[in-house]
């Protein structure tokens, strides 16, 4: 039953994609900056964890080091680059170009330091498989699903239950009002960039654990994730996660009816048509 395997594979990939989409959605909805360098931070997380592992830290500690590092880098990016640009009245295009430049800087630094070869984490337990309902799942895949759901629930809890989360949604819903009230949007932006960047480290480690580490690996994943965010309705965390799952499953199941090379093209094709009729996304937040 090829379709079951493809479906499962799609759900696993959807969870990884969902984590990238949710983290991007948190940032994009609040700051409205098109943070393309999120793909580079995703890559950075994987390499930091890889180095921590090579220096003898246990797996969970290496992941933690990656998460903290990405969070710090996210906050720094907001403080030193985006905030300064925003204050000097930069338009969204200017901020996007700066973000593209930053992405090139980070990814090429990784390529210079770690070479462009496909690196392995070399953790044998990652590949061991267990049979679930007639389909084979590796430990890494199960971890990805686990972390995916955890991240989604965590993001929802954060956005709706915590004070900072509520402030974040306030700033997202009315940036102008936030400016003049005591919400201090600048602080919220830094916090949300830190949290979003920290969260993206998790898929940044789990995906390469399964598929190998490459410096330029983050860009295709982020583009698909932005589609999930936009199609799901900016600001809606559920929208982002659900759409990520839908896109991933569709991409995998599309193999049943067509050769693989068209699955990416089809995804973007459907998205472009979708945007023409539903410009504000499904679950407008």
């Amino acid at each position, binding site marked *: 039953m090829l379709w079951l395997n493809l479906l499962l594979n799609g759900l696993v990939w959807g969870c990884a994609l969902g984590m990238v989409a949710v983290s991007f959605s948190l940032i994009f909805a609040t700051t409205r900056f098109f943070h393309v360098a999120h793909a580079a931070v995703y890559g950075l997380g994987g390499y930091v964890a890889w180095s921590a592992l090579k220096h003898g830290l246990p797996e969970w500690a290496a992941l933690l080091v990656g998460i903290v590092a990405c969070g710090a880098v996210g906050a720094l990016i907001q403080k030193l680059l985006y905030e300064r640009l925003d204050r000097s009245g930069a338009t969204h295009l200017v901020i996007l170009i*700066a973000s593209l*430049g930053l992405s090139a800087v980070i990814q090429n630094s990784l390529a*210079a330091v770690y070479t462009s070869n496909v690196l392995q984490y070399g953790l044998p337990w990652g590949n061991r498989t267990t049979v679930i309902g007639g389909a084979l799942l590796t430990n890494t895949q199960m971890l990805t699903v686990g972390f995916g759901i955890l991240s989604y629930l965590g993001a929802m809890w954060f956005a709706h239950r915590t004070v900072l989360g509520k402030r974040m949604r306030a700033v997202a819903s009315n940036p102008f009002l936030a400016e003049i009230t005591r919400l201090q949007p600048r602080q919220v932006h830094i916090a949300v960039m830190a949290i979003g960047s920290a969260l993206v480290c998790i898929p940044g480690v789990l995906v390469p654990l399964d598929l190998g580490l490459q410096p330029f690996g983050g860009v295709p994943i982020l583009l698909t994730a932005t589609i999930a965010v936009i199609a799901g309705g900016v600001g809606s965390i559920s929208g982002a996660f659900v759409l990520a799952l839908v896109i991933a499953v569709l991409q995998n199941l599309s193999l049943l009816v067509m050769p693989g090379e068209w699955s990416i*093209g089809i995804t*973007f*094709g459907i998205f*472009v048509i979708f945007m*023409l009729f539903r410009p504000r996304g499904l679950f407008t937040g």
Partner: protein
Amino acid sequence: MDFLTTYIVLAEIYVLLGLSTNLLVGIVGIFSVSQAAVFGVGAYLTAFLLMHTALPFPVAVLLAAALCVGLNILVTLPSLRVSGDYFVVTSFGIQLLATAVFTNWTGGTGGANGLPGVPAPMILGHEFLEPTEFIALTTIGMGLGCLCFWLMMRAPFGALLRAIREDELAVAALGKSVLGAKVSAAALAGAFAGSAGGLYATFLSFVDPSSFDLDASIFLLTMVVVGGARTLAGSVLGPFVLLALPQILALIDIPTSIAAAARQLIYGLLLIVFMLFRPQGLLGEKL
């Protein structure tokens, strides 16, 4: 000195693309990240016409440019329904869709193998093979492009586009068709990109999807922004500077093993520095 003439020929082709991108992104304010896709269609179509039909070079390029006019209008129409940030992602989508078609439609575009053996331009019996000859074609092409851009900006059409960029509603209230102006601008931008594609394919005699992917679109955007947004001078300066940059950076002797990655890193740094301290680029106006 083929190296210098090749650099100038490529820069002049990219100036045509710079005019196209500047017109859309800088002047009309449609933030398109898919100009390289239209450039690609121009290149593939010209190559196809020259390789499979008896059409002379000028007719093939004009035909390709005409189709790109239509294509660019189609590509920019969504921007009328979809606002700023959302259009960026749609534009990313269009570019990736085009790359998927270039890479997989082996029948038409030669797929990932690309299309080797594109014949050199043949005008009035003279074959433009060497860069020293080809430079005449690109100089004329660029000249015509700049002339059109300059005339257009001086005419009421340019004033109308600038007004639209500031406040579409006010322009409509003054009895002007905003849609008509945007479609005309997209048509002009398409003609520039299509003809640039034709020149590119016949100069290299080989085209493959790598020249028309997302990186290429981002490179076009960066050329316009660094050279200078919204001005003719910016559209001309940008390509010459950014094409020379890798050669200039090559003069700094970095250990070969990381030299290339370091150069791309410096390239990225330049982008950030420009956006922080001179967002209007070298010769442009504020975006």
